[in-house]
């Protein structure tokens, strides 16, 4: 079998989730061929590093108009690569870019897309996946009866292997002709987040606050703990709807679905829509005044108490333990 992987990069940096997708393809495909496709500008010399994660062949598509992501430019490029390689499956990371690109590719090729999957397998030559639905309240097993099977892989669901620097692969340049008129929707500007911000869906540690935090300024105690743990800050819907935190930090069914190593829920009671977004965390700590809060039922470790007192003590204790 042959699996083609879109290896997402921004500003010459491959996304961790893209590396995970290549590793997922390698494991899925056994002795088969894994082809990585890199799209951008001035990225060919960096593409070789993908061999260390299991790419047997690397296609580099470079163009001035591909410097920044565009749905039209990237779809056309990836579609040409797929038509040339004729793979059995195409994988993309389920990032902002992958979630935009995969459905366009699927529509162009007239094949469905298995979105945001957490497991992949072959069944009689068809791509089969497990994917969380209803924000993770249920897991659906679904098969694509079309070729190629297209799937987007959920960040952190597939482990990235240790790079094997002994492996090499040829980087072949693949030409695609594009003109300004082909790009109907164009990125005019990129506003970068502050340096050091950790993306929730990629974070290993998350410190999250809810209604029990009582005010926007009280989140500083969570930020202090986050700093010590190198964690991202999350928030419940109640905290976001109260205007204490931005919607991009919301964890749950109208926000992000996360799966960190450690999730610390502070002043979060555990509404069903919040639990749906974080129950696949490896270890969950709950700190809440109300001993009957539903969050305690799913937390590995609970402390009954005021987060405003417990969290600073926890921050100091972790600092001391390091």
């Amino acid at each position, binding site marked *: 079998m042959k699996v083609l992987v879109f290896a997402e990069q921004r500003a010459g940096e491959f*996304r961790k989730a893209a590396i995970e997708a290549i590793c997922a393809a390698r494991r899925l495909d056994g002795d088969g061929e894994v082809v990585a496709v890199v799209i951008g500008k001035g990225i060919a010399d960096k593409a070789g590093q993908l061999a260390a994660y299991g790419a047997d062949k690397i296609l580099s598509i470079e163009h001035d108009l591909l410097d920044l*992501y565009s*749905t039209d430019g990237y779809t056309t490029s990836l579609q040409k690569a797929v038509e040339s390689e004729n793979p059995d499956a195409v994988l993309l990371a389920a990032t*902002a870019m992958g979630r*935009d690109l995969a*459905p*366009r590719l699927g*529509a162009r090729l007239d*094949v*469905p*897309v298995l*979105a*945001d999957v957490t497991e992949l397998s072959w069944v009689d030559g068809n791509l089969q996946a497990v994917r*969380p639905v*209803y*924000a993770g*309240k*249920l*897991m*659906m*097993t679904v*098969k*694509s*009866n*079309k070729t190629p099977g297209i799937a987007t892989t959920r960040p952190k669901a597939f482990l990235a292997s240790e790079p094997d620097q002994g492996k090499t692969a040829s980087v072949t340049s693949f030409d695609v002709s594009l003109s300004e008129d082909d790009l*109907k*929707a*164009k*990125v*005019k500007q990129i*506003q*970068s987040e502050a340096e050091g911000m950790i993306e929730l*869906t990629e974070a290993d540690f998350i410190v999250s606050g809810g209604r029990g935090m009582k005010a926007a300024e009280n989140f500083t105690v969570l930020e202090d703990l986050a700093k010590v*743990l190198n964690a991202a800050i999350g928030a419940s819907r109640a905290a976001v709807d109260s205007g204490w935190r931005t*919607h991009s930090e919301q964890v749950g069914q*109208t926000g992000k679905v996360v799966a960190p190593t*450690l999730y610390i829920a502070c002043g979060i009671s555990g*509404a*069903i*829509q919040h639990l*749906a977004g974080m*129950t696949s965390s*490896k*270890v969950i*700590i709950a700190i809440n005044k109300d*001993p009957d809060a539903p969050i305690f*039922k*799913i937390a*590995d*470790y*609970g*402390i*009954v*108490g005021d987060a405003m*007192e*417990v969290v600073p*003590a*926890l921050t100091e*204790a*972790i600092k001391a333990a390091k």
Partner: protein
Amino acid sequence: MNILVCVKHVPDTETAVKIGADGKSIQTQDVNFILNPYDEFALEEALKIKEAKGGEVTLITAGPEEAKKSLRTGLAMGADKAMHILCDESHDSLALAFCLAEGIKDESFDLILCGKQAMDEDNAQVPIMLADKLGLPNISAVIKLEIGDGTATAHREFEGGTEVVETSLPAVISAHKGLNEPRYASLKGIMMAKKKEIKDVSCTCAESGLEILDMAYPPSRAGGRIVGEGTDAVPELVKLLREEAKVI
């Protein structure tokens, strides 16, 4: 501006969904269905644009008869009219996009707004696939939208920042939380909605290329352990995190 808003009738997010008797679908009895929350952001934006620039807001859904309830909710919020494609398909985004594209083939819109995903099967694909079927550009998951003269400029977040994307119109744009605060339907709106037109549209659904084999509950967590109360419990918690969970 003539604006189309695509909506879906989905289980309330506060619902604990249960697997149906066939093992492949969900139980729908005793489940409260609502207008998909992301679609409320799309509709709110459409209503704001209409208020600023004039025009008409049309709703469309593809789904079973009961989905008319969500169309009524949208009409009560302020949409002018609605179209209903009676269709049993709800799993395959590509088939749904095909269905929606067929349903509006005789209409013309300056802007098509959708929620970024339906909060049932979380595919987040229909708006983008619909755009492709209609040969239109798309901007997905936007948190800010400005409509210019035949153009739209939108902000969309990615991991590490925000992209400012400009497109010509017509285009398909999908709404993320943060775009606006959806209004509540007024009593007058609810009364008026009863008189607004819902046009039934027939469509031959495309055959699905997807096959659902199984639905399962995620592994349950063996939680529930209370380490202690207040700051006194912190040393024990840190010890457990180091020695038992081994995460710090």
